[in-house]
């Protein structure tokens, strides 16, 4: 079993070779069979959709590595777009609004972290915060004088040839986060706490502080992801990140990061996101109903969890429902 921590060693990266191969295979198949996929417009739109998914998934991956989950990423992405639109009403203009958007993401993340470290179930905590954040974003959206700073957004949306600025930035953040999680002291503590929080606590690691760091980062990256979405839509919309939650969780699980925490490699987020985005692009380009994309994501989510369980050899299909312990002669379930 690939039960080893995320490091920068070849052995750790090699675990994801099938994922990289599958992503490459899909890319080649799409390029060869679909002429529309090869056009520079298509490449640009693929990369532009990929950037926010990758950025948000990095944050999600960090919380899942920590043994938690962040269901508020969608709401935070929406909040960030709304905050950016405040640029006309606050001193400092667009740059200040950009900083404010990231800062609000960080604050939401820290609140999540505080709640989780006080013992509230991370699922419910982030779920509840998502409601609060979405409500707040809807309120801020109605501020009079709020308008998207179009000039600033178009600078953010600059493309070098077919490659958008944010796509380059997403890869940079990914590699940075991967190195940080694998090599830094805090990153290793985060992985250890994700693997077994109690033992990590007994070893004297600062679990509470790490909780704040993990959720804070996730919130900030979700806000950044929201800003990446804006470069495509140019709209302040509190509900813009509705699909981000399932997208990011599906990406992280496809990447082989175990939902129980502590196992997996952050670098695999990239091929996983590519697989999902390329399939989405194929569905769009072949004119298939966009709802198939939604269905695909749901099925993928279950399939990813199932496949990794199978790889771990722990999927057992019990044929008899009413098997109980008493008549059984020896071993119980683990």
């Amino acid at each position, binding site marked *: 079993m690939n039960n080893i921590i995320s490091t920068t060693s070849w052995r750790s990266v090699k675990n994801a070779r099938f994922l990289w191969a599958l992503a490459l295979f899909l890319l080649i198949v799409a390029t060869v069979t679909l002429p529309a996929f090869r056009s520079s417009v298509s490449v640009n739109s693929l990369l532009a959709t990929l950037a926010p998914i990758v950025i948000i998934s990095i944050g999600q991956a960090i919380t899942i590595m920590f043994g938690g*989950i962040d269901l508020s990423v969608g709401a935070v992405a929406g909040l960030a777009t709304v905050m950016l639109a405040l640029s006309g009403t606050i001193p400092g203009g667009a740059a200040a609004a950009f900083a404010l958007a990231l800062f609000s993401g960080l604050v939401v993340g820290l609140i999540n972290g505080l*709640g989780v470290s*006080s*013992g*509230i*179930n991370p*699922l*419910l*905590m982030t*779920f*509840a*915060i*998502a*409601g*609060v*954040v*979405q*409500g*707040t*974003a*809807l*309120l801020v959206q109605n501020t009079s004088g709020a308008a998207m700073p179009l000039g600033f957004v178009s600078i953010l949306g600059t493309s070098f040839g077919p490659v958008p600025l944010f796509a380059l930035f997403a890869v940079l953040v990914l590699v940075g986060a991967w190195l940080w999680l694998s090599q830094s002291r805090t990153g290793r503590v985060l992985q250890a706490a994700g693997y077994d929080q109690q033992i990590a606590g007994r070893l004297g690691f600062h679990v509470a502080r790490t909780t704040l760091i993990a959720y804070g980062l996730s919130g900030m990256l979700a806000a950044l992801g929201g800003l990446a979405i804006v470069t495509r839509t140019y709209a302040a919309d509190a509900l813009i990140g509705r699909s981000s939650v*399932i997208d990011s*969780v599906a990406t992280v*699980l496809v990447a082989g990061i175990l*939902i129980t925490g502590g196992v997996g490699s952050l670098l695999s987020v990239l091929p996983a996101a590519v697989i999902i985005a390329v399939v989405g692009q194929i569905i769009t380009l072949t004119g298939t*109903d966009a*709802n*198939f*994309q*939604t*269905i*695909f*994501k*749901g*099925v993928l*989510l*279950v399939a990813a*969890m*199932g496949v990794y*369980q199978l790889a771990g050899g*722990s*999927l057992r*299909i*019990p044929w008899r*429902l*009413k*098997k*109980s*312990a*008493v008549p059984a002669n020896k071993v*119980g*379930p683990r």
Partner: protein
Amino acid sequence: MKSSALSLRLVPAQLWVAYGLVLVCVLLLGFNTEDGFSPDRLLRILSNAAPLGVVAIAQTLVIINRGLDLSVGPIMNTAGILTAVLTASPGASLATTVPIVLIVGASIGVINGVMLAFTRIPPLLGTLATATVIQGLYSLITRGQPRGSVPPELRVLADHRVFATPFSGSLIIWIVLLVIVGLVLTRTVAGQRFYSVGANPRAAWLSGVPIKSHTLIAYTASGLLSAAAGILLIAYSGSPSLTAADTYSLNSVVAAVIGGAALAGGTGGMVGTFAGVAVLAFLTTVLTSFNVASPIQLVVNGAVLILMLFVNGRIAKRRAHA
């Protein structure tokens, strides 16, 4: 249960908190609006909350089993859309439609149950995936525009009073379901087994209780009840919708948690869940009567959930130490 003084002390602290909140909401509502304490009005508010009430029963069952069902909202939408389409088809009546809709709901529940009982997929993600797939499927099939109409016989359920009593049909359905499920949970061996599986699956298994079939039953019941809630919802709203029930996934969890159900399983019950639904229903009415914008209501609901999680967590911790 004979000496009331003893049973009063056995009431869990979470229930005091939950019913205290109900009382606060009712008082706020009563003093701030004209005619606020009229029983007819209070009953109407509860009657409008009947769909939430029924789906909260479903959610509580699943939470007692250490699970979580986020597909209840989409199942409710499915039930609404199906009811409208089927009753509009020639030769169909409510008597043929309702069983079909309930069976469809239960089958989705079976899919959830099989998936979650036999693999180690976390319930939240498994049901989130089911929810996404269902949403995709019905958007695909209806092409974004659900057709059909809600028959007037069904509307009667939500609008009219039964036999000159102040209770509406949906309120009675909700209360009857609540009482039946409550009695089965607390007064039968099957109910006790159900709790034991949630409280400690391994201990239950070692005592000869089959845990997987209980998980399957919990999710099947959840699908069935969600479908019933979906029918009640379109009886109230009058038109099928692709999104109307989306908020019910979160709100049913909130209701169960306010009622003292812990996600760790094994606690919670119908008495508490009733209070949870009542709190949400009255709170919404209070906020609306204060002209609070709907985004703020979202914020308040989220904040109440966090607060109750925190409080219930503290109560559970104190009890564990005592």
